[in-house]
C-alpha cells in the first residue's frame, strides 16, 4: 500500500479514537440520570494530567469478608432520598433491569475491600488540589451522572 494512503488511514484512526473517546463519555454526560454521592477525598497528582483529587465514596465500601471475588464486575443498585443523595440498596452480580445502578469492579487489596466505579478521579486546576481537599473534608457530595448501562461520570463536586 502506498505510504500516503497509510498516513491518511492513521490520521482517520487517530481522529476516530478521539471521537469515540469523546462521544462515549459525552453520551453519559448528556443522557445520564443525576444523583448525589457522599465522598471522602484524598489528594494526589497525576503525571500526565496534573492535580486531581481521589474520590472515595461511601458506596465503595465492602465488608472485609464478602462473597465477591477480586476483579469481579458487580452492579450497585442505588436508592435516593428526598435530597437526591444516593446510597446502595443492594449489590447485584447480574445486570439489574429498570433500576438506577452503577457498574463497578471489586478490588480486594489485603484487608481493604471496595468497589471501584471509574469515578474516583476528579481533575482540578494546578495547585488547587490541596485546598479543595481541605474543603471536601468538611463534608461533600459528588454530582454524578449515570447512564442506562451503569456507566457513571462526575459532573461536579458540591461542598
Amino acid at each position, binding site marked *: 500500500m502506498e505510504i500516503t494512503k497509510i498516513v491518511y488511514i492513521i490520521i482517520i484512526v487517530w481522529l476516530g479514537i*478521539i471521537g469515540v473517546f469523546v462521544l462515549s463519555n459525552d453520551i453519559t454526560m448528556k443522557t445520564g440520570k443525576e444523583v448525589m454521592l457522599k465522598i471522602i477525598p484524598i489528594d494526589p497528582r*497525576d503525571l500526565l*494530567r496534573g*492535580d486531581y483529587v481521589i474520590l472515595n465514596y461511601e458506596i465503595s465500601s465492602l465488608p472485609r469478608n464478602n462473597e465477591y471475588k*477480586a476483579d469481579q464486575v458487580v452492579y450497585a443498585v442505588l436508592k435516593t432520598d428526598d435530597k437526591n443523595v444516593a446510597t446502595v440498596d443492594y449489590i447485584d452480580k447480574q445486570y439489574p433491569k429498570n433500576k438506577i445502578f452503577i457498574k463497578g469492579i471489586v478490588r*480486594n487489596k489485603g484487608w481493604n475491600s471496595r468497589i*471501584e466505579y471509574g*469515578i474516583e478521579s476528579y481533575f482540578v486546576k494546578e495547585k488547587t488540589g490541596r485546598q479543595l481537599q481541605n474543603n471536601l473534608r468538611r463534608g461533600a457530595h459528588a454530582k454524578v451522572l449515570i447512564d442506562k448501562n451503569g456507566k457513571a461520570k462526575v459532573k461536579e463536586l458540591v461542598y
Partner: protein
Amino acid sequence: MEKTINKWLEKGLIDKETALRLINEAKEEAEGLQKIHSLIALYVVGAVLLGLGVISFIAANDWILEFLKSSDFLKILLLSGTTIGSFYGGYKLAYENKNYPRLGRTLIFLSTILIGATYALVGQIYHLNANNSFLMFLWTASILPLAYIFKDKAINILSIILFIFGVIFYYMELSFDKGYTWTIFIPVILGTFLYSLGNIPSIQKNYNNFSLSYKLVGLAPIFTTLIILICSFKDSYELLSLNYILPIMFLFALNFAIVYLKEDKDLLFNLEEGFIFALLTLLVLILTLPVISIPLIMLTSHLLIIFVISTGFYFGYKFENVGLINSCTWFLIIYLTTTYCRFGWNFMDKTLFFILGGACLLGLGSFLERKKKETLKGSKWTWK
C-alpha cells in the same frame, strides 16, 4: 581513518595525491556528520520540549484552558489539530517533498507525543481515572504503526516505554499488592516479551535496530529478577490466577511460533530461545508449585545469570560489538558484587570482606580491559 590511509600509502597501495584526497574527504565527511548530529540533537530536544510543554499545559489545567472554557470541544479540537498538523506536516517535509527530512521526522515524533497528550486531555475533561493502563495501551497502539512505517527508532523506544508503563499500571489496577508481582512476575513477563519481539524473524530481518532495542530493554528487568532470586524469596507463592498464568502461556506460544517460523536457526538464536523457555519454566514453577526447593531455584538462577553473561561475552567478542561487551561487563560486576555480599558478609571478617572484594573487582576490571583491547585491536571499533 587517517592512520589506515597512511598504512595504505606506506604499503604502496595508493599514491600520495590519492592519500591526501582521501584524508580530506574523510575529514569533510566527519565534519558534515558532526553538523548533522548536532542538528538532529537540536530537533529532538526541541520536539521533546514542545511535547513536554503541551503535556504540562494540560496537566496545569490552568489559565489558557480557563480562557477556552467555553467549550471542551474547542480544547480537544485545538490539540487534535496540532497533533494531526504536526504528523501530516512532518510527513510532507520528510517523505513527500523531502526538503527537510530531519525536521519532518522530528515533527512526526512530536505528533506521537501530542496524540498521547490529546488522550490525556480527553481523560482529564471527563475525569477518567488517573494513571490508567488503558490510556497507555491506547497511546502505544496509536504510535507503534508509525515506528514501523517510518522505521523510526525514537518512536519505537517511546512505544516500548509506554508499553512498560501500561503493564505496570494494569497490574496496579488489579487486586494485587504482593511484592513478588513487582519483583518476579512483571519484570520477567515484560523482559521476556520484549526480548521475544526482538527474535521475531520479520523484525530481525527488516527492523534490525528495533530488534536490538527490544533485546537490550528486555534483558535488564530479567537480569534484575534473577539477581533478586539469588538473594531471597519465600518458599511458595501458589499463584493460580489467570492474570498470571495467561501471559506466561502466551509467551510460551509466541516463542514456539518464533522457533517454528525462523528459517536459518543459528547458534545464538538457539541459545536465546533455550534461555527464554528455561526462564518461563522457572517462572511457572516458582509461581504455581505448592512446595519449591529454595536451593534448586537459587542454583538455577545462578546458572541462568552465568549463561547470559558468558553468552553475551562470547558473541560480543565474536561480532566485535562493544555495546554488548560493556553491558555484559556491567552484568558481571553486579552479579559478582551481589553474590559476594550474599555469601561473604556472614562468613568473613568485615575488614577482609571489603579488602578482598575490592581487590578482586579491581583485578577483574583490569583483566577485562586488557582482554577488550586485545580482541578489538585493529577492528573497526577502534577507530570509528
